[in-house]
Every structure is written in C-alpha cells, then in structure tokens.
C-alpha cells in the first residue's frame, strides 16, 4: 500500500543519462522474461535488467522508509496512552513497524545497495515515503483509525506483493503480512471499545478522527489508473499486481460495513451502494491536496523528515563508538 503513490512522475526531473534505458543482452533478457512470465522468482544472484533492479531498489527502500517514518505519527501517542494495556499494545505495534522496516532494508540490500546510502537518499529528500504519514495524529482516536484504515489499506496492497517476482521482497512481505493483520484488528478493537462502551466525548473523538483520515486513506491507493503510467511495467514484473482503482474500490467495499458496526459515518455525501455494479459508489478525491502533500507541502512533511535526520545525526557518535570498540577488540584478539 505504501508503494502505490510511488508509481508516479518524480517531482524532480531525472537527469538525461538516467532516461536512456541501457540495451540489455537479448538472450539474458529472454531468460529473465521467461521466469517472469512463468510467475517464477528472481533471486539476488540472477541476472536482471538494470531497470528492474533500479525499480526494485526504489520501491523496496521507499517501502522501508515508510515503515520507519510511519513510527512517528503513532509514536506520538505512546507517552500519553490512556491505559497501560493500550500503551503496551501501541509500543509493540510501533516496534513491529521498525521490524518491518528492517526486513525491507535487508531485502533491498540483497540488490547491492547499502542501508546507509538508502537512508542518505531519504534524509536528503531524494527518496520518498508514503505520504499518509505527512498528516498529524491529533487525538488518541487517530491511533485507532490509523490501525483500522491505514493498516487496512496496507494489507490490501501487501498481500499481492507476497507473490512478487523478486524473491527477497516476496519473502519479506510474507513476514510483514503475518504481523500486519494483528495491527488492524487492534486498531479496530480500540475504536470499538470507545464506540460501544465509551463516553459521548470518546465517541465524538472517534468520529472526528474518521472525518479527518477517511479521504487521506482513499488517496493512499494512488492516482486513478489512467494517471499512473508506470503501472503497466510494474504489473508485468509482478511488483504491482492490482490496479489502484480496483484496490481502492475493494477497500471501500470492505470498510463501509466495518464502519457501520462501529457506528461511525464516513464524510462522503456521495457514498451509496450501487446494486447494478455490486459496489459502493463514492465521491471525488481531492487530488490537488494529495499532490501538494506528496510534493512536500503537507502539514508534517518538514517535521517528519527533520525528526528522522536528527535521530540519525545524533546517533552518529553511538554508531561510531560501536565500530571503534569492535576494531579495538579485534586488535586485542590478534595481539593475544
């Protein structure tokens, strides 16, 4: 899910040299295509066209960045969680996200790119992360809504990625998916308790959070199919398996009944069940707002990135101490 909005035009124009696709050897290309067409796996040692490798490095690393940056909006409420049980659940969830980032960085590293260089790309603004994390978590209910809607949307996209053509990415996604459904259930359960047993103020908090997050979550699936030019190649390579619009529709259809059980409404006057189509009709997404945020002008973009850069920069002495110590220990071992 976090990857949908990446299959878009770069805001920064790529350099001329990057636009020219290298000519790949025909026999290797044919063998590669055969594996892809047979729904097989490409592994790190296999030959692959440069465009495939480059696309994967970008997609996997940006997926990893999304997990790490995604720790911040939810992490915002750990210190103020209103019960010890909820504090522990939220801490464990945010920790899982760190773990997912780790699996994904590991998968990307099999392609020969270092963790440090991927982080550098993030910190200098060359690499993206899912734009949903550029919005603020203003109340405790936002945490539950993120679990229900944001993780719910993520699951929808991640399950097909478990079958993607690049082996390490597919295997990382299998591990991620196992843990993710747990997160969605916890978010939903937290909201359910507030709606069914909570005070009027708590119910209002939940409805307010849904009102602020609903449209942002729909936009998470990325621009309409006709505005997503790179999707075709992604689909062929098994990196992207289902269209943006199809996933978005699937999400709405699955989520509205859940909203009804919760007793919340979604802020869409055009939402209506369409018997003929067998799906929900829903209103228009504000793509201008989406693009403004993706391109750096959302409510939290600067703060999210600055926070990650600060953590990295201030952690430098710690990382260096560990390396220095390891080197000293090695010297001592040799001397002994």
């Amino acid at each position, binding site marked *: 899910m976090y990857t949908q909005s990446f299959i878009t035009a*770069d805001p*920064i124009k*790529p*350099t001329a*040299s*990057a636009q020219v696709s290298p000519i790949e050897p025909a*026999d*290797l290309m044919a*063998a*590669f295509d055969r*594996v892809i067409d047979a729904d097989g796996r490409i592994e*790190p*040692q*296999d*030959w692959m066209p440069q465009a495939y*490798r*480059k696309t994967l*490095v*970008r997609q996997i*690393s*940006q997926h990893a960045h999304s997990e790490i940056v995604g720790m911040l909006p939810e992490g915002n409420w750990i210190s103020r969680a209103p019960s010890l049980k909820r504090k522990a659940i939220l801490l464990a969830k945010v920790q899982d996200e760190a*773990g997912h980032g*780790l*699996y994904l960085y*590991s998968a990307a*590293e*099999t*392609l*020969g*790119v*270092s*963790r*440090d*260089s991927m*982080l*550098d*790309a993030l*910190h*200098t603004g*060359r*690499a993206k992360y899912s734009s949903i994390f550029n919005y603020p978590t203003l109340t405790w209910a936002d945490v539950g809504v993120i679990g229900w809607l944001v993780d719910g949307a993520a699951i929808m996209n991640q399950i097909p990625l478990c079958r993607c053509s690049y082996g390490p990415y597919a295997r*990382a996604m299998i*591990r991620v998916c196992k843990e993710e459904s747990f997160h969605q259930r916890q978010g939903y359960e937290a909201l359910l308790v507030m709606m069914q047993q909570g005070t009027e103020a708590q119910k209002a908090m939940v409805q307010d959070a849904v009102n602020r997050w609903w449209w942002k979550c729909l936009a998470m699936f990325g621009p309409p199919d006709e505005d997503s030019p790179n999707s075709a190649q992604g689909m062929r390579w098994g990196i992207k398996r289902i269209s943006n619009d199809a996933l978005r529709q699937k999400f709405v259809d699955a989520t509205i009944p859940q909203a009804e059980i919760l007793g919340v409404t979604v802020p869409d006057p055009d939402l209506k069940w369409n018997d003929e189509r067998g799906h929900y009709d829903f209103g228009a997404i504000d793509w201008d707002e989406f693009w403004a945020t993706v391109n750096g002008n959302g409510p939290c973009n600067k703060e999210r*990135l*600055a926070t990650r*850069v600060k953590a*990295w*920069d201030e952690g*430098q*002495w710690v*990382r*260096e101490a*560990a*390396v*220095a*110590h*390891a*080197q000293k*220990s*090695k010297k001592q071992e040799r001397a002994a």
Partner: protein
Amino acid sequence: MTASNDKKATDAQGAPLAEWPLWEIFVRSKQGLEHKHCGSLHASDAQHALQMARDVYTRRQEGVSIWVIPSNAITASSPDDKGAFFDPANDKIYRHPTFYTIPDEVGHM
C-alpha cells in the same frame, strides 16, 4: 537540516568510520530441527549481532538458538536449471561483494 554525509567522523588514523557490517541471521526455534535463515541486520561485531538478533528476530523467545555470520562470508551455489542465466562470477548471496553508494548521476531513487 544537514545531509548525513557532511560530518563523517574518522578513526585515529583519519580513515572514515565505517557503517556497521551486515550479518545474516539463522534461528532454530525451541522445537525446530534446523536453523532457518531469518534475514539480516547491521551490528558492530559478532556478539553484538547475536544480541541484536535476539531482540529483532526472536523477540526474545526462550530456548532458541541463533547463528550469525557476516554476509560476505557466505558463498552460494547456482541452482542447476538456471544455466547461462546465472552469472558465474557472482557466487555471493548479494548482488555485489562489496556495498557501494549510488552516485547522484545514476538517477533518482
């Protein structure tokens, strides 16, 4: 906001202090028969890697056995059916035996 490349510290000889090396992690669960590959992580040395693996890949379950090995110490075979598709010069588990940073000219990630 500083780019993290700006102020790399150096060791006593003035050489830049490196990124933590990459380790592959293998875990045998309490009831398991063999060690399974879980993934990788960065740590400054083997003991550190063992501790990290416990936190990251086993979430501190009891009775598990962990092996860590530097990623570049693993030599891998080629699957028989790949034939010429497999690059015989590349018997490491990663695409390149050493890691490198992507120069800006290569394009944007």
